[in-house]
């Protein structure tokens, strides 16, 4: 059965790759076709050059440079009295950079491409994964395993082939941020971690770029515009980074897909307002979105801080200092968050998932305690495991004791030996903490399963779900 499944998986994979390749060729040809049609539109008799290069006299006194195709494409914008030709022309001449093609960046990029900014840059170093799909709506299944930048650029081009899409397939670092940001008028922060947010804000201050900053987690979102027209920067609001324990990640805490979608749409809106010079950007104010309560509040925040290290008058923070600044050390959290791998226990207090599997197969008398939160346990668990979430471990020692006793009776373990005690969690960090605690309380033979349920999927049963 297992080899059968892997054959199917393999065939699926190669079919998907072939499909992605065909999709790519289709969209390239479509873009080509559109380009040809556009040129034909602009030069109906081959007698005059495209409108964008001719003077206003050819346009019956109209002072814009919109081609007939542009007028048709953006007609609903042009019909808006408060937007119209002027704002659309501004937009077409502007450039916007979106850092992060994830949950926030997905809708932001799609709307920015659709609305007709002149140049749209995308920075991302990550690849598309299945567990991104519920919120990162710019990506399609055919791109799983491939760079998000490619996937996002492909989607943007298929929405609007007339926008110049620039792919920055790299992680944003102090070594490349200045050079990349320099090429754009407006920066959109659609990242997912604290060090990136400080780095992006500082870089915007150094280069005088407005920053549209959005964030989302769980069922809540936040939005504001930094460094715009004398308004505050990120450091004015948060001069000291929060403790790393206060920085939750979507991969650990979860996020309802539509929530970053809403914030990302609002980020596109703010970027469009700034780039087209209409309305009042959300500077000096912050929008707080609560999805469960269906509540949006807009609160007044402080102005530029006189003490701000980055943006105060006569600030001494230079581009050179920026290049050398260690944002990971400053925030005590990594730029590209990778799962924590603790090593708290000696080797003899640990067991691999493979070895655990063998012991179960041999009918060893044992109890497996799963210390994940109850809502994790409901997603998936190993057979016969006992769920005792880490925070309640101490209070529930008696349950472990009686489970061990019961197992010994059932398997009729002879006197002198006893049932083994194993602990598992999602990735193998909390299980070590739990074993430390168990050791202290007298369960001296307790061992944890290295790498948790993820290693079970990886090394024992590929069909065991990961989340």
């Amino acid at each position, binding site marked *: 059965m297992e080899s059968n499944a892997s054959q199917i998986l393999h065939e699926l994979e190669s079919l998907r790759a072939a499909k992605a390749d065909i999709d790519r060729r289709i969209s390239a040809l479509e873009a080509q076709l559109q380009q040809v049609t556009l040129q034909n539109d602009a030069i109906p008799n081959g007698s005059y050059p495209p409108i964008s290069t001719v003077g206003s006299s050819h346009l019956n006194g109209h002072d814009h440079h919109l081609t007939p195709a542009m007028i048709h494409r953006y007609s609903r914008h042009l019909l808006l009295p408060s937007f119209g030709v002027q704002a659309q022309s501004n937009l077409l001449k502007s450039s916007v950079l979106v850092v992060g093609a994830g949950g926030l960046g997905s809708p932001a990029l799609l709307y920015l491409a659709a609305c007709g900014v002149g140049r749209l840059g995308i920075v991302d170093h990550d690849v598309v994964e299945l567990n991104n799909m519920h919120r990162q709506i710019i990506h399609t299944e055919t791109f799983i395993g491939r760079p998000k930048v490619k996937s996002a650029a492909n989607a943007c081009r298929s929405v609007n082939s007339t926008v110049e899409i620039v792919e920055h397939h790299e992680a944003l670092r102090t070594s490349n941020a200045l050079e990349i940001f320099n090429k754009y008028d407006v920066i959109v922060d659609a990242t997912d971690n604290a060090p990136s947010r400080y780095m992006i804000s500082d870089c915007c201050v150094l280069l005088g770029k407005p920053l549209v900053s959005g*964030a989302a987690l769980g069922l809540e979102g936040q939005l504001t515009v930094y460094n715009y027209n004398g308004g505050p920067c990120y450091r004015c609001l948060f001069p000291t980074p929060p403790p790393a324990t206060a920085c939750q990640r979507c991969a650990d805490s979860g996020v309802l897909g539509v929530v970053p979608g809403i914030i990302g749409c609002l980020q596109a809106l703010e970027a469009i307002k700034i780039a087209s010079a209409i309305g009042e950007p959300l500077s000096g104010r912050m929008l707080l979105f609560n999805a469960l309560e269906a509540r949006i509040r807009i609160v007044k925040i402080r102005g530029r801080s006189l003490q701000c290290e980055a943006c105060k008058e006569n600030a001494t923070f230079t581009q050179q200092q920026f290049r050398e600044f260690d944002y990971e050390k400053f925030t005590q959290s990594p730029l590209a968050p990778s799962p924590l791998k603790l090593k708290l226990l000696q080797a003899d207090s640990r067991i691999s998932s493979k070895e655990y599997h063998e012991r179960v197969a041999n009918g060893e008398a044992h109890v497996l305690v799963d210390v994940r939160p109850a809502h994790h346990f409901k997603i998936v668990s190993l057979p016969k495991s006992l769920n005792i979430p880490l925070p309640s471990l101490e209070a529930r020692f008696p349950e472990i004791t009686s489970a061990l006793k019961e197992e010994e009776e059932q398997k009729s373990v002879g006197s002198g030996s006893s049932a083994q005690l194993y602990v598992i969690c999602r990735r193998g960090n909390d299980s070590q903490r739990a074993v430390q605690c168990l050791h202290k309380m007298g369960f001296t033979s307790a061992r944890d399963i290295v790498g948790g349920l993820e290693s079970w999927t990886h090394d024992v049963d590929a069909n065991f779900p990961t989340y």
Partner: protein
Amino acid sequence: MAGSGSFGISSAPGHYNIGGLELLCDSVKVHNVKVELQNGAEKLTMKDLLGWVRTNLIKERPEMFMKGDTVRPGVLVLVNDCDWELSGQLDTTLEEKDVVVFISTLHGG
């Protein structure tokens, strides 16, 4: 302690509405609280209120709420939908029925 926190409205004297502490207060999002003034004090300040909250409301991990005598880094304090930096931070004086919300900045995306 995340998010905007909802809030109730009270007209009883000496009452303040506090929101945004749900993760540290048994998931209770809105607290309608009555804080007695210290002897001789004419008005309650945010400094008084923070001390009161720490003693009376926070059920777990106080370090996720405060550092020293103020809120921990990464927490925005809003008094009636306004950043407390604009009203004097710890020295902000509170009026009857004022609404105080603690916002933990989000980084996810």
